[in-house]
Structures are given as structure tokens and as C-alpha cells.
């Protein structure tokens, strides 16, 4: 398409910059939690994720070895060690009281109240020099503000997957999602074929009813179904939630598939009929393979919807370890670890990574489905 933009370089620049800005706004939030989930949790707690690549400033409190371990050096007694205790870092300043933890630059000496001079070197080595043999007691507290190199780790993921129970929830979500995606497709495909290519009284009415059911809010169904489930003894079980998701996904499935099947060329179906094929054979051997794009569209819709669902899972599955799905777990973590971002960001990423992969892999079908069935609100 020829647009007037091509001839105006200034406008092209504006368009490009605007799109860059839009894309940044729409991707940075997700990128932020991805970066954060990979950062060291101490660094994550005190600096923004956009500083992840710059060295982090951190205040630590170390305690020197007890004074009685001081060794005689010439006339004096000296106590040595390292404030980082095996770790690495770059000390910038140190102090001897919590009121002013960075009172002295590294390399200088500070006089201790109990006698003795404390020196901290940039690499964290400290030395306390006493004029006389010091009294035994507790070690001196040393406050050090250090500059640490950026640290990245997969520890957060190991933690949430294995100790916070996210791994189990991941399996639960899979257990809910796979059958809840496949079952409605089959049931809907037959119904859609009947609505598209078979003649029977009441067909128009049924179609109208299905379009109407597309928008019935889930909230309507929760209480009646919960009561029904309890009455007939399904209770909170996987079979209950599979059927529930099947029910809620069926109107969209039938609607999408019927529209697609009705658009298939009539000649194919009629010539098959003339050849003596039954409706059952026509459906199985001709319609079903031809409808693959529509089946894929619905499958990805339903997959995303079921994977990301919180409401149906909260109502129809238990809140216990055995049945909690990813979204439910994420919500629980959000409640109990409001400020522990290393747990929340890693968990959130675990919960969204599969849908995002599916999304990028099957985007074409998703778009096609959206264009065909944009009546349902998600």
C-alpha cells in the first residue's frame, strides 16, 4: 500500500519512534520481572532491576574475631580477617557504630572505644592493632558499605519450584489444561458440523442460542454448579473442572468451528454425498482435516484461557497442596510474600512462560481465531 509517509522522512522517524515507545511500554514490565527473577535476592531487595548491570551498593555488618585471638606482632597485638567472610566485594567505607556505618573511608584507621585501631582495606581485609594484650570478650562489630559486582543466579527458580511448591502446581495446571482443551474440541466439532451442513428444524434457533451463550458471564454458573457438584458427589475434583471448562468453552468452539465449516466449498461435500458417503464419514474424512486451522485457533484460545484461569480453578478445585494450580499458587504467594520479590518474580515467570511460548509459536492461529470470533470477551 502506498502511503504518503514514504515521501516524508521526518514523519517516518516520528512513526518509528512512536512504535519503539509503544513496544517498550508493552514489553518492559514483563522484561522487568524476568531480569529481577534472575538477580541475587539481596541485590534485588535494594535496587531497581534497571540497575541490574551496575555494581550494587550494600551495607553489611561483620564481627571481628574475639580479641583473645589477637597475635603478638612486635610490641603490639594484631587481629586480622576479612569482613566478607569468604565472599567477594569491594569495600568503600566502614564504621564502628550503627549510627554512622560509613564514617571512615577504607584505608584509614578508626580508634575503637576499648582501645585499638581498626583498619579496613578495599578488599575487605581488616586489622585491629592493640597496644596491649586485649581483654577477652566479643569481637568488634564492623560496618562496611561495599560495592558488589552484579550477581545473577538461578537460585530463585530452584527455590520456588522445589520449596514453594510451584513445581507441583505446574503439574496440576497441566493436568487441568490438557483434557480441558481437547474434550470440548471433539464435542464442538460434531455439533458445528450439524449446524453447518445438516438440515433440521430449530437450527437457526440453536445458532442464535449459541451466540447468546457466548457472553453469559461465568459468575452466573459458579454457585449453581457448585451446588450441583456437591449434590451429585463430584465435589472438588479434576473431572469436575474439566467438564466445567468444557462447558464454558463450548459456545466459542461451536461458533468458531461452525463459521469455518460453513465456509468450506459445498461441492466437496455434495460430491461425497453423491458417492454414497454418510454424514459420519464426510465429517471424519473430509470436514475434520479441512477444518484444522479453525481447530487450532480454538485449541490455542482454550489453552490460554484454561491455563490462565483463576476463578474456575478457585471454585471447582481445592485450595490444598494436591490441587492448587499455578494461578492460585501465585495469588497465595502474593498474599504471603508481598515484599519478597525474588519469590514473586520467579513464580510469575514460571506461570507465564508456557503461555508465552505457545503464543509465539501459534500466533498465526490465534490471530485467525480472534478475527473469526471476536464476540466473546475472553
Amino acid at each position: 500500500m502506498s502511503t504518503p509517509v514514504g515521501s516524508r522522512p521526518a514523519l517516518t522517524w516520528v512513526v518509528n519512534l512512536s512504535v519503539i515507545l509503544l513496544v517498550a511500554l508493552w514489553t518492559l514490565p514483563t522484561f522487568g520481572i524476568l531480569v529481577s527473577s534472575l538477580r541475587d535476592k539481596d541485590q534485588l531487595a535494594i535496587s531497581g532491576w534497571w540497575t541490574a548491570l551496575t555494581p550494587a551498593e550494600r551495607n553489611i555488618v561483620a564481627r571481628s574475631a574475639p580479641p583473645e585471638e589477637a597475635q603478638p606482632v612486635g610490641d603490639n597485638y594484631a587481629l586480622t580477617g576479612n569482613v566478607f567472610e569468604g565472599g567477594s566485594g569491594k569495600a568503600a567505607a566502614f564504621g564502628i557504630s550503627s549510627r554512622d556505618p560509613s564514617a571512615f573511608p577504607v584505608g584509614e584507621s578508626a580508634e575503637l572505644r576499648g582501645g585499638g585501631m581498626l583498619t579496613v582495606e578495599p578488599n575487605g581485609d581488616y586489622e585491629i592493632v592493640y597496644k596491649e594484650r586485649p581483654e577477652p570478650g566479643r569481637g568488634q562489630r564492623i560496618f562496611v558499605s561495599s560495592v558488589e559486582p552484579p550477581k545473577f543466579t538461578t537460585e530463585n527458580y530452584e527455590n520456588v519450584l522445589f520449596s514453594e511448591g510451584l513445581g507441583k502446581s505446574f503439574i496440576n495446571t497441566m493436568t487441568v489444561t490438557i483434557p480441558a482443551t481437547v474434550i470440548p474440541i471433539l464435542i464442538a466439532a460434531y455439533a458445528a458440523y450439524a449446524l453447518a451442513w445438516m438440515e433440521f428444524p430449530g437450527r437457526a434457533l440453536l445458532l442464535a442460542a449459541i451466540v447468546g451463550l457466548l457472553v453469559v458471564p461465568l459468575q452466573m454458573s459458579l454457585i449453581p454448579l457448585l451446588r450441583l457438584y456437591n449434590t451429585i458427589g463430584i465435589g472438588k475434583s479434576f473431572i469436575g473442572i474439566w467438564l466445567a471448562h468444557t462447558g464454558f468453552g463450548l459456545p466459542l468452539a461451536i461458533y468458531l468451528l461452525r463459521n469455518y465449516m460453513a465456509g468450506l466449498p459445498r461441492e466437496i461435500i455434495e460430491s461425497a454425498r453423491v458417492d454414497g458417503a454418510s454424514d459420519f464419514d464426510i465429517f471424519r474424512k473430509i470436514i475434520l482435516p479441512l477444518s484444522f486451522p479453525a481447530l487450532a485457533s480454538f485449541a490455542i484460545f482454550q489453552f490460554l484461557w484454561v491455563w490462565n484461569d483463576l476463578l474456575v480453578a478457585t471454585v471447582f478445585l481445592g485450595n490444598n497442596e494436591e490441587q492448587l494450580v499455578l494461578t492460585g499458587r501465585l495469588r497465595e504467594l502474593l498474599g504471603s510474600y508481598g515484599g519478597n520479590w525474588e519469590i514473586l518474580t520467579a513464580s510469575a515467570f514460571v506461570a507465564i512462560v508456557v503461555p508465552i511460548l505457545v503464543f509465539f509459536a501459534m500466533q498465526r492461529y490465534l490471530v485467525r481465531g480472534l478475527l473469526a470470533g471476536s464476540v466473546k470477551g475472553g
Partner: protein
Amino acid sequence: MAISSNETAPSAGSPGPASFLLHLVIALAIMIAGIVFAVLCAVAVFAALNTVLPDIKLIQAVLVMMLGVAACFGYFWGSNRLLDIIYPPRGSRVAENINAANGIRPWLFLGPAIVILGVYLVYPVVNSIVLSFHGPSGESWVGGANYAWLAQDAAFRESMRNNILWLIVVPAAATFFGLIAAALTDRIGWGNVAKSLIFMPMAISFVGASVIWKFIYDYRAQGSEQIGILNAIVTFFGAEPQAWITIPFWNNFFLMVILIWIQTGFAMVILSAALRGIPEETIEAAIIDGASPFQIFYKIKVPQIWGTIAVVWTTITILVLKVFDIVLAMTNGQWGSQVLANYMFDWMFRGLDFGRASTIALVIMAMVTPIMVWNIREARKDMK
């Protein structure tokens, strides 16, 4: 499109209501037989396999899935077979048999779908209406007491006000940004990549998105380093950091941003397809007349896609009415951010009052109904 024009009616003349009912009854009988057959097969296979396979949930899920699929096929195959046995398409009465079978078969194909839709969507609507006239556990009749309570309930009014705010802001903003994004990305070389990235939040769950945005809104007391990017920006410009999601009234908008962020991609994809479908002649004519790109967009293109904009708008509207996860995860309705869907959930699980919860659900349903009627009318227009 195919509704009125496919398949010739049976030559024996269209079946009367009596034979239609007869067909339904036979279909029902065959359906029940088919379902029993399918379930029996599935149970037998399940029992057999269950003793062999290890007790791991994922394996069981895959197993159940395969059995479900097998049962579905079993039903459709079995019921069809039964129909062919009852009305064989050969012999002396072949014409009558084929007619009868053709009358019954659609109902066999539709049967499971109708049963499930009935149980999961139609029955609940009726049952909710009944429950709304009953007490907490659904047993005692209370007449209009739930509605009277609703009318004077302050939290309900707050939810209604917030829902109306959501209904105005979210569809408008998502459609607007979607339109801008569609118009801009269609003009550049890397437009498809940009589209993909703007579309991506659509794949993220509302809870996941809530975590993402809660991280953005994160608040630390003034003086300490902000790790939420919004407060970092605010303090960079010298202002005081805010606990954004606890500021009454305005926090609604901070929650809406999340849904707008998710839905813009949807609006963009649909509107972009519509923009591309505009006939080029109209645009070329406008260019020749010396219209600027902005004039072309607002005066030529947008008016031609009003229909699509309306579809996008109503679709997002329906979604907004059901919004629940975001509010539950971000504030759980505190600080004046309650919405209907979350308030209903509150009465269902914390208030344990099914009567009141059903009444709130009916309010949501009532708000969806105009869109439902409009959709049905549009769909029927398309089919004619």
C-alpha cells in the same frame, strides 16, 4: 451464510411436527445408549490401565484425556452405528429409512453439546434467578430481600461506581491505543515484530500481570531506594513516592492500566485487519486531493471501520464486566477498589451467602444482556 441454502429438503415433503418429535425421542434413546456404551468402555479401560500404570498425576491426566477422547469417538461412532442398524439405508424401505435417519442424525451430533451447554450455562442462569430469592444456603424463601439489601448496600454502590468507571475507561483506552498501534505498525518495516510484542501480554494471566504491575507500583518509604519503576521515576523528578494502589479512587485507574495493557494487543490485531481491508481507491483519492496523513486517518480510514471498532469495544466491555482476578490479586477490593465480580466472589466464599452472591451475579448478567441481544441480531443478519 449456509443456513438457508444447503441441502435439499427430503423429497417426501418436509416432516411434520409429529415426526420431528418422534425423531427427537429416538435420537434421545440412541444418545443415551451411545453415552452408556462410551462410558462403559472408558470405565473398563480405565480400570484395567489404572492397575498397571504408576500413580502419577500427570500420567493419569494423559490417560484420562485419552479415555475422554476415546469415549467421545466411541459415542459418535456407536450412536451412528446404532442408527444405521435401526434404519438400514438399504432393503425395501430404503427411502423412508434414509429420511428418518437424516432426521435423527443431527440430534446425535448435537446431543453432547446441547446437554453440556444446558447443564453448564442455561440451567445456572435459571437457578441463579431462583437462588436470588432465597437465603444464604439457598433453602429458605426470602422474596425480594436480597434485592432490597443490594439497593441500600454501600459496598455494592462502590462496586457499581467502579465497574462503570472500568466500563468507560478500559474499552476506550484499549481501543484507542490499539487503533494507534495498528495504524503505526502498518507503516513500518518491522511492524509485524512490533505487533507481536504489543500483542504478547494477551498470553499472560491476569494474576501474572498483577504481579508484574505490582512490581511496577512497588512502594518504599521516602529516602530508601525505590525498586518499583514508577516510584523510581517519580522520585527521580523530585516528587514523593506514593503507595499507588492504596490511594482511594485513583487506585482504580492503576488497576485499569493492567487490563488496558493486556487488551490493547487484541484491539490492535482486529483493527489492523480492518484497516488493511479498506479499499485503496478511497485513500488514493484523498491523497490526490492533498489530504494530510492525519486527515486520511481520522476522516477517511476511521469512519470506514466503525463497525469493527464497535465489535472490539463490546468485546472488551464484556471482559471488563467479568474482571475479577486483577482486583482480587492487587487489592482484594480494599481502598475503595471493589468491583462487582470480586464482590460476588466475596459473598460466595467469605460471606457464604449464595442468595446475595447470586443476586450480584444477576446484576452482571443484566449488564451483559444488551450486548447479548445486539450480538444475536448481528449474527442473524450475517447468516441470512
